[in-house]
């Protein structure tokens, strides 16, 4: 029991909980909210690529979700074959197939941190804090991988040289202006990161005194 206590930290005495409600509810709210945002982000687009060209008056749009891509994917693939880019469906297959489980795990860890009244909470939430950075890093990896490995035998390989499409902002490929934007899902995950950091601060403020007290009493 003692070892577990070391990990989960001390429980809050009921009278203290009633007396200083705000102190304990804050970290719970922040971390819980972050977990909720992360969970919701599964169903929202993370990243969008818009292609603009004269012959596409409404533009071509493609949205990346954590587990699938949506929009004019077939048409973008069809265009990409001219420059020798592989089908977007081949990108990040492993990540996409594992994404739901991994994000669910992140969510559970963040929820776990609410009940962990010790510095271990930090360990639990680190993956969730880093998650947006990891997502973007992976995104960049695939952009680089796809853009730099164009089929040299493609019809337009002489005019379109390998390139790395931007993960945010505007680019130009042939007659296409490309606009990469961060979408609601990604913004949610970033907000979740910030909320976790804020939550950790309040977490420390709420539980550290309790922990200190416990240590004091133990070493007495």
């Amino acid at each position, binding site marked *: 029991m003692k070892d577990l206590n070391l990990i989960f930290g001390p429980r809050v005495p009921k009278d203290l909980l009633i007396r200083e409600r*705000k102190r304990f509810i*804050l970290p719970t709210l922040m971390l819980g909210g972050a977990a909720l945002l992360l969970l919701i982000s599964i169903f929202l687009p993370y990243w969008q690529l818009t292609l603009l060209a004269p012959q596409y008056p409404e533009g071509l749009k493609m949205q990346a979700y954590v587990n699938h891509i949506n929009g004019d994917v077939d048409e973008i693939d069809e265009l990409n074959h001219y420059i020798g880019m592989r089908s977007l469906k081949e990108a990040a297959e492993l990540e996409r197939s594992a994404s739901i489980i991994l994000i669910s795990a992140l969510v559970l860890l963040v929820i776990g941190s609410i009940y962990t009244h010790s510095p271990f909470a930090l360990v639990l939430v680190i993956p969730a804090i880093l998650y947006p950075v990891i997502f973007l890093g992976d995104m960049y990896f695939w952009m680089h991988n796809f853009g730099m490995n164009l089929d040299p035998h493609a*019809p337009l390989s002489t005019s379109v040289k390998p390139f790395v499409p931007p993960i945010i902002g505007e680019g130009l490929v042939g007659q296409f202006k490309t606009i990469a934007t961060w979408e609601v899902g990604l913004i949610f995950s970033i*907000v979740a990161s*910030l909320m976790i950091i*804020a939550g950790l601060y*309040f977490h420390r403020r709420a539980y550290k005194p309790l922990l200190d007290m416990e240590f004091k009493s133990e070493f007495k």
Partner: protein
Amino acid sequence: MKLKNIYQLAAAVLILALVFVFFRCGGEKEEGEHVSGNLEDIAKERGLTPADLIAAAKTYMPSGKKDDYLMFASGGHSGQVFVLGLPSMRLLKVIGVFTPEPWQGWGFSEDTKAILHGGDPEGDSLSWGDTHHPALSQTNGDYDGQFLFINDKANARIAVIDLRDFETKQIVKNPLAYSDHGGTFATPNTDYIIEGGQYAMPWAGEFAPISDYKDKYHGMITFWKFDRKSGRIDKNNSFALELPPYWQDLVEAGKLISDGWVFQNSFNTEMATGGDMEGNPPVEAGASQRDMDYLHVINLNAAIKLYKSGNYKKVNGFAVIPLDVSAKQNILTFVPEPKSPHGVDVTPDGNFLVVSGKLDPHVTIYNFTKIKTAIENNKFEGKDSYGVNIVNYDDALEAQVEIGLGPLHTQYDQNGYAYTSLFLESAVARWTLGGKWTEKTGKKAWTLIDKIPINYNVGHIAIPGGDTEHPDGKYLVSLDKWSIDRFTDVGPLLPQNFQLIDISNPEGKMQLLSDTPIGVGEPHYAQIISTSKIKAWETYPDIGWDPSTQSKSPYATTAGKEKIDKRGNTVEIWMTAIRSHYTPDQVLVKKGNRVIWHITNIERAKDATHGFALPYYNVNLSLEPGETQTIDFIAKKEGVYPYYCTEFCSALHLEMSGYFMVQP
């Protein structure tokens, strides 16, 4: 940190997020339009009057703006249907119907050949038609935008066009006659498509000397059952009425109060047959001797009952209710009408029938209720020589309006006005209806109000919904037979002229807005529908679509599943087309092989159509996004035949090609 600070922090995060979203959504700047010139100077230089400028403003379509109405015009002896947008009058499409049409690959693939030749006479092949009267399908007496029907006068055929893809789905041949004119007309719920005959003749395939005209020659009106679900005419549940050999003309189905009744004109009750080499008067004179011809009044509901009870004979395998039966039961009755009429046009309330004798300056208006009462009370003035009861002219008459020379065809607006084309006078007349319509017009009933000259020789006219229960009388199109001096000369064969007329203000004059040359054939009638009622597909719903069945084709081929099957003397190719290549792009067969070639356009992008042209073998397909078509031929001559895409589909369009190699 206090709770307040938390809220501040949360607010800051929210604002940051909002700012972020806002910047992302920041609109692009629109480029300014660069206009050169000054309106007054341009008008002066081009000789445009203020009225011209107003007409231009009413019809000009800036690039990218879309029309409010679609007009489906018959294509005359082009055998096709024209689709134009109103008010711009831009030609949007020529739908291949009775004539092969290479752009649409119409009549080149096996499926389209089967439809195109679905109405061929046995053992023969027709390669043209004479389309006359398009009819949009109706629901509750108004156009529903689902189907279009059209007849071929030359060969008595009816075509069904599906307005999801604007392609012809069926052609049926009338088994009784070789030509028709009074088609097509739809009943208010499109239960039946009506095809009236024209030149009396012995039943198709029979011979009778012209001296036996009165006994052996027949008129007919055919009621084709339409099955909306399958989108096809159901020949097995269709029937015809045998009519006297008066040359029957245009038809209209009754609506509302006259629903279940059908009206048809005739113009040769003299039964003239010509014989000008024998010293007889030619038909044009012989058929114009009597002052009156007969308006045919047909009780369709009673006819259907008779047909369903099996009370018919079979002619060429087709159900025909004999003339003596329908005469005896008053399924067919006559009302005298001024001679040589063209149209009979039912008012939007279904109560009045307007008939124009081409050789009489009046329009004659009959009251349906009066006709019905006379028939119910057996009040007739006599019988014709075939035993058909004739309602007394005065018992049926409502009014006559003198409107001008050569009245031909009448359409209606929603405000109680009728519009009649005047062929001889080259004008369109606007006149007031009577009855309850007087409340709407606030003018004297049955009175000529306005007339507008047209250029020249107007036949039919068309108003959006002008023959339905709810017309939408903003425009009128005058389908002019002659254009004479309207356009730049292009040789002795002149284009027809479609004139767009603004009729939206019944208190003022009608205004001519524009001329549109039609240099493809002679359109007869047109129907105009609001574009909001048309639900056309942008691409076919699924990859591997068979437009002839409107379902997925068993020959659909997807990317990666392409193959060439060789078995015995047959080579079967399963090909895909996508920008900018065919798979396979090489096909090798032996001379004499039967080649069955399925091609699927696997594109999903709007407008990404591919063609397929194979020289020597007369193959030209149009494969719209998702479409599958099949060709089937014998590789009868050795050689190497480059096939290619006939649509400029992409920058590498020229490269979209392949080799069909026939080894000796």
